């Protein structure tokens, strides 16, 4: 195996350039590329120097179209050019979507912040609960027990009703059979 691989790797450039060797040439190239990639990844990891990103508070936008939110200039009215009119409606819809998204981005809370807020929120809510439990621990226990009992009762009822119906069913079936016979 190893010998074979070595042989492959040692194929000469001229040979690989020939038409019938194209496939293996591609493979060799791919392997080389992957090897390079592996090396590259490590290489970069080692060399990273933490640079403070240059603070640039400003974005230059030379277009009035963006600033003033101008419409697209190709228009048709009252069905003069149906092709353009179709285009207008689709463009309007797309623009609305894009703007809504932008607006949402600006106003909404992003995932990280959400996670942060929630983590702190969990803490505060947990505090609340512990407080309540400290104040009246007996109450909460009782209510829990009560709930459990109620659920048990309910389930018993259900089972009971179920059994009754099934018994009735069987009786009816038996009657039917008797009548037939």
């Amino acid at each position: 195996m190893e010998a074979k691989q070595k042989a492959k790797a040692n194929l000469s450039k001229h040979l690989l350039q020939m038409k019938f060797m194209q496939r293996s040439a591609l493979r060799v190239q791919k392997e080389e590329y992957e090897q390079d990639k592996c090396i590259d990844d490590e290489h970069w990891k080692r060399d990273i120097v933490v640079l403070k990103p240059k603070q640039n508070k400003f974005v230059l936008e030379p277009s009035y179209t963006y600033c003033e939110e101008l419409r697209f200039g190709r228009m048709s009215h009252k069905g003069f050019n149906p092709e353009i009119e179709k285009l207008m409606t689709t463009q309007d819809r797309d623009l609305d979507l894009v703007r809504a998204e932008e607006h949402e981005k600006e106003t909404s809370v992003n995932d990280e912040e959400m996670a942060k807020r929630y983590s702190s929120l969990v803490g505060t809510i947990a505090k609340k609960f512990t407080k309540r439990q400290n104040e009246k621990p007996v109450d909460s226990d009782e209510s829990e027990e009560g709930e459990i009992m109620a659920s048990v009762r309910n389930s018993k009822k259900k089972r009971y009703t179920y059994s009754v119906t099934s018994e009735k069913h069987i009786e009816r079936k038996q009657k039917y059979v008797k009548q037939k016979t």
Partner: protein
Amino acid sequence: MPEVGSVVLPGDVITDLKGSESSGKTVLGPGLRIDSQNVQDERNEIVVCKPGILRHRDPNVYWVDSHQKRYIPTKGDSIIGIVTIKSGDNFRVDIGSNELASLSYLAFEGATKRNRPDVKIGDLVYARIVVANKDMEPEIVCIDSMGRSSGLGVIREGGFLLHCSLNLVRKILSKECPLLKLLGSTLPYETAIGMNGRIWIKGRSTVETITIINAIEKSEFSSNEQIKAMVRQTMDHLSGF
């Protein structure tokens, strides 16, 4: 510090611009520049480079609204050009800027090396600017990124080309301006509006085309209310009242 909505002159320094809440960035539109001397010391000084009115759009966009007739190519603008020279693979198109723009013959919908688009000298093209650089000639295309025309291309069915100031174009293209919709509610017409101060209009007849052109020209310095009244009047006039 000049306030939003006031007149600013080149050289005025602007401070205290609002940034976006999430990224803290401010978008500077046309007419505003970062003072190159102060980039290093991170003092955020913005200098005005066009005379006009300082405008602001929520959340973080600032620009100067200035009166202007000379078009300066900007990436992404849709413009009306006039094909002036046909030279090999490129058309040279007059877009009203200091230099002719180049338009590749492959930058049309459905164009291939064999199937050249039918463009003659003197044709109008509605195109989009893809390269706008102060050191290079602008480059325009008549297709979008998907290779479709999406409204761009040669305009050839008659009509009328109006040259006007860049402000007027911006005004009638803004969302608040009712002019085109009002005209369109009574007259069927087609238009291509270039950010370079050229408006192509085609109505059903010459008279209607001229009416629309006049209405557009009149609306440059009037408010929305005035525009509404004016359109009503011209429409009445057109229908013979």
